[in-house]
């Protein structure tokens, strides 16, 4: 008898079962912001074959599993070029995130993935990249930027412009990476804070959509990638369109409540699309066709 269907498919979980997480250990925990409600977890696979099976590209997410508490989906913040670990940045919100925030390095948890679609890497080759992000949603863009800046990848992409805003300087994530990128010739990084921070600050002041309008990156041969809270996205898209970006060239990443992450449990749909498999990355053109239920 042939191998059963369930044995053939080897993605997303142990022994071809996409519901079973890979065991990982928390190697390091970094507090990202002043409010201390954002922590980055560096996870290391316990088994080498799990690590190789977890082949991902920026844009994807994983379900992080805490046995006894539950699971939660997080965008993967590390780039596949960072081969030895996965990074997830977790905001303290509910029961699973509370359990993670209360954890110490050395704790074993689980990951199921990689899940979802990726940023459209084929389309991005040869293009200028315009990244616009606000707040906590910057996680998968850390992955994208790290990936593009890696020496083996940099030549594939044109000019990289990135605008990242937060409420205040202390709320910006990945401060080490931001400092390195500020100095790099390979990326034009602009940081912004919503209001005058009342401390020495050499970045921009203002809401992201307004700062974007001021900086006016060129739309010719460019694709925009936008990740942020819904309200920021709502005001950023018109600015990008003003600058000349076509709807197909504005790339977004959606969030939705998820459980299985593999398109079965029916929870995360927006119209006929499931955010966990048909997304989370959508173009604005695709999103406009969907019912406004997200």
């Amino acid at each position: 008898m042939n191998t059963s269907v369930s044995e053939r498919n080897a993605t997303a979980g142990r022994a071809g079962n996409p519901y079973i997480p890979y065991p990982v250990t928390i190697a390091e925990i970094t507090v990202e912001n002043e409010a201390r409600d954002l922590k980055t977890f560096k996870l290391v696979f316990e088994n080498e074959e799990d690590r190789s099976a977890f082949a991902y590209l920026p844009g994807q997410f994983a379900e992080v599993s805490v046995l006894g508490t539950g699971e939660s989906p997080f965008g993967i913040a590390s780039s596949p070029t960072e081969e030895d670990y996965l990074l997830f940045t977790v905001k303290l919100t509910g029961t699973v995130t509370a359990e993670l925030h209360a954890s110490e390095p050395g704790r074993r948890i689980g990951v199921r993935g990689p899940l979802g679609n990726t940023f459209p890497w084929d389309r991005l080759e040869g293009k200028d990249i315009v990244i616009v992000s606000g707040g906590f949603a910057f996680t998968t863009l850390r992955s994208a930027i790290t990936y593009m800046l890696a020496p083996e990848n940099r030549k594939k992409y044109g000019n990289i412009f990135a605008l990242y805003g937060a409420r205040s300087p202390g709320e910006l994530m990945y401060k080490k990476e931001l400092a390195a990128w500020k100095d790099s010739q390979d990326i034009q990084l602009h940081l912004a804070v919503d209001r005058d921070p009342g401390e020495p600050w050499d970045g921009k002041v203002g809401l992201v959509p307004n700062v974007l309008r001021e900086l006016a990156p060129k739309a010719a041969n460019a694709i925009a990638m936008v990740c942020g809270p819904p309200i920021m996205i709502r005001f950023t898209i018109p600015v990008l369109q003003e600058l000349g970006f076509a709807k197909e060239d504005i790339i977004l990443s959606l969030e939705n409540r998820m459980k299985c992450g593999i398109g079965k449990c029916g929870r995360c749909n927006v119209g006929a699309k499931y955010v966990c498999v048909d997304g989370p990355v959508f173009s604005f053109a695709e999103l406009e066709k969907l019912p406004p239920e997200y």
Partner: protein
Amino acid sequence: MDRATIRKEDIPKLKGEGKFFAPGRKAGDATAFVELVEEPAEILYEYGNVRVPLKQVFFPQTEVLCEYDFDEITEVPLPTESIVVFGARPCDTRALAQLDAVFSPEYKGHPDPYYLRRRENSVVIALACSLPCGSCFCTVTGGGPADREGADILAHELGAAEPGAAKPGAAGSGDTLLFEALTDKGRALLEAHGELFAEAQAGQIETAQKAAAAAEAKVRELNDLGVDLGAELDALKRNMDPLFEDSRWSGLTDSCIGCGACTYLCPTCYCFDIADESRLYKGRRIRTWDSCQFPLFTRHASGHNPRTNKKERLRQRFMHKFSYAVENNEDVLCVGCGRCITACPVNLDIRDVIRAFAKGIQSEHVSQ
């Protein structure tokens, strides 16, 4: 051999090594419901449909995905037992075919090993309907009382009553069934139990076909909703989406109380939840039926909820069945069994929705 007859008294002998389900009364159940029961004391034939649909055999209400102890997974209880089901109605087996499609790896790229293992190890024998009820509209959704999708064998009662007969007592009083094997598994079952089967006579086959045709005509007569959804898949793809913002949704959904009875008793509804349940450090990760009708179904941890009110949630149910499933699966995710109509505490009727939008569905306008 593809067609054979078997005596009703021999049906329990079709049980294989594992489980055997047939319509009967649950021991200790004080209600009059007929259910799919494991090895019932008596197999019943005089019933419209079982209360809880066939999906519960392959997609149980509560299922253990894995067991854990502290931070380690100790067991993944993938199903191993074989299952023989006898007497599922063709609407339920057609629904099973749709669940097969959803849980297969071809659908969105991932398999559901728990469901698939059970299905691989199962043989499903459908029992054609000879007595359709007023709330049955299987023909509207592309099925019928003798539909052949999803089952391995289609059984017909020989000597069953004509629909609408004054003396329905003939239903269940015949003692022979005609089995039509529809798949390799079905044929294998007939082979394996060869001693129980006799070759079907031409007259018997004709009787069964006539009864099936009469039943189908009866369903069509009972429920003409102004549109044949099964034949209108392309129209549904074009026209259902624009109906999302239609103003009639409010009126159609006002009386919904937001319970999950329709979704739980629906043979094609399959939404589920995953939860960890522990006792100190040992526990199980389970999946359980969930419903898009519950307010918390789509609520984010942040508190944001894309569907804040009943109208939006009930609209989601109907759009999933008549639009999204058509786009994703080339099929209407409804088999016309009518359980949602009879179970609804406020008599909300999916047929009202179909009728309301029938013209819109069939219109010639082409959406962008």
